[in-house]
């Protein structure tokens, strides 16, 4: 049984009908066409579905869409401002931290919470913050480098 809700995504309010058990990931991808947020495992084990709710990184695959009413959601599509890439996006390109790219959006969204709270993180803080994001291509080193670079460029 679907219910009409309104949710704010990337600053825009959407009215749509969702079932109580629908995940935010499902709504983002299938209802709103925001496919930057990826579906990997759909059970909280890979991190590529990471979005920010109220500034905190969470897995959208286990977030109930109904539960985000009144709480601003930010997805990878929402971090580019006036056509300018976010410092993290630019740093991932510059550091060569993207191979197949499947994990990238989720990892950037996780790193975003880190940089908002710890502007100049050390390596272990970075690794801790992205521990919930799996990457099967890069071996992580370039991801860590990219996050360091983004921090330096934002300072």
């Amino acid at each position, binding site marked *: 049984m679907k219910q009409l809700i309104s949710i704010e995504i990337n600053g825009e309010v959407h009215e749509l009908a969702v079932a*109580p058990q629908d995940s935010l990931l499902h709504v983002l991808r299938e209802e709103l066409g925001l496919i930057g947020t990826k579906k990997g495992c759909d059970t909280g084990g890979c991190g590529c579905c990471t979005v920010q709710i109220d500034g905190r990184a969470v897995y959208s695959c286990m977030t109930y869409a109904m*539960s985000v009413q009144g709480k601003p959601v930010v997805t990878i599509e929402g971090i580019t401002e006036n056509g300018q890439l976010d410092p993290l996006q630019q740093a991932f390109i510059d550091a060569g931290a993207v191979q197949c790219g499947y994990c990238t959006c989720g990892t950037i969204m*996780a790193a975003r919470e880190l940089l908002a709270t710890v502007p100049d993180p050390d390596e272990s803080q970075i690794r801790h913050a992205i*521990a919930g994001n799996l990457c099967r291509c890069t071996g992580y080193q370039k991801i860590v480098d990219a996050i360091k670079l983004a921090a330096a460029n934002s300072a």
Partner: protein
Amino acid sequence: MSDVQNYLSPHRLDDAVKAMAGGDTTVLCGGTDLSPQTDSGLREYAGTLMNIRRIEGLSGIDLIDGQIRIGALVTVTGIGNSQLLDELAPVLVEAADQFASDQIRNAASLGGNICNASPAGDMIIPLLVLDAVVELSSWRQGTVHTRQVSLDEFFTAPGKTVRQENELLTAVIFDQPAESFVAHFRKSGPRPALEIATVSVGIGGRLENGSLSGVRVAMGAVAPTPLRARSVEATLEGKTLDAETIRAAAVDAGEQATPIDDVRASAWYRRHLVCVFTEEVLNDVLEN
């Protein structure tokens, strides 16, 4: 999958427990256990899905009259960031730091961790060491009725507790530990993040002149429920914490554990880890 008919998100505790009084309600908090369990068909939704996250008054961490009270909705991130807990019950912060990943910690609630009743629940082990009680609330005779149950008596089997279907877990409460109380927690898994404990051990007590008193030992993932290891406590109580005592406690801990073979580890390996961890945690306790 059964279809949820109704979604509720009450702001008041009385509305929430009233809704539970009729049965046929599934409680949702962070959803990090509920979502995979329903998706995989392990469990079915009731007719009403009730999100408890917006209930007011259940998100605090407070020191009241010598007791620490943690609301059921507090997240693992909230526990990890709590100044009050870092000062008065740092073993909880230590366990929160070893919990899953940032994304899970941001969503996972204390109440959900306890009510899910996994023998591996990482918040449960330190809370057993702190001798916590849980507060359960229900709607009875026109008012919110609460009762307290010792955490030690709360779990009955994997995923099963003494909580009645119409009861909401509203808080966890424990006495402010004494000045000399020291406790530590250790958990293992093949990797540091996103890992359900293969085994975990928590030990605490008052450390005075190199010996422990009021000892509490808890172990995770070694029995059908989180376990208080009373015989290990007796082995340690009042003794000087020297190599011999620590060794005896470790051997005893291995004997108390009744682990299973599963995908995560063999029973043999778990029992071995329990011994090693008991020794390590006791050494941590000794060093403060």
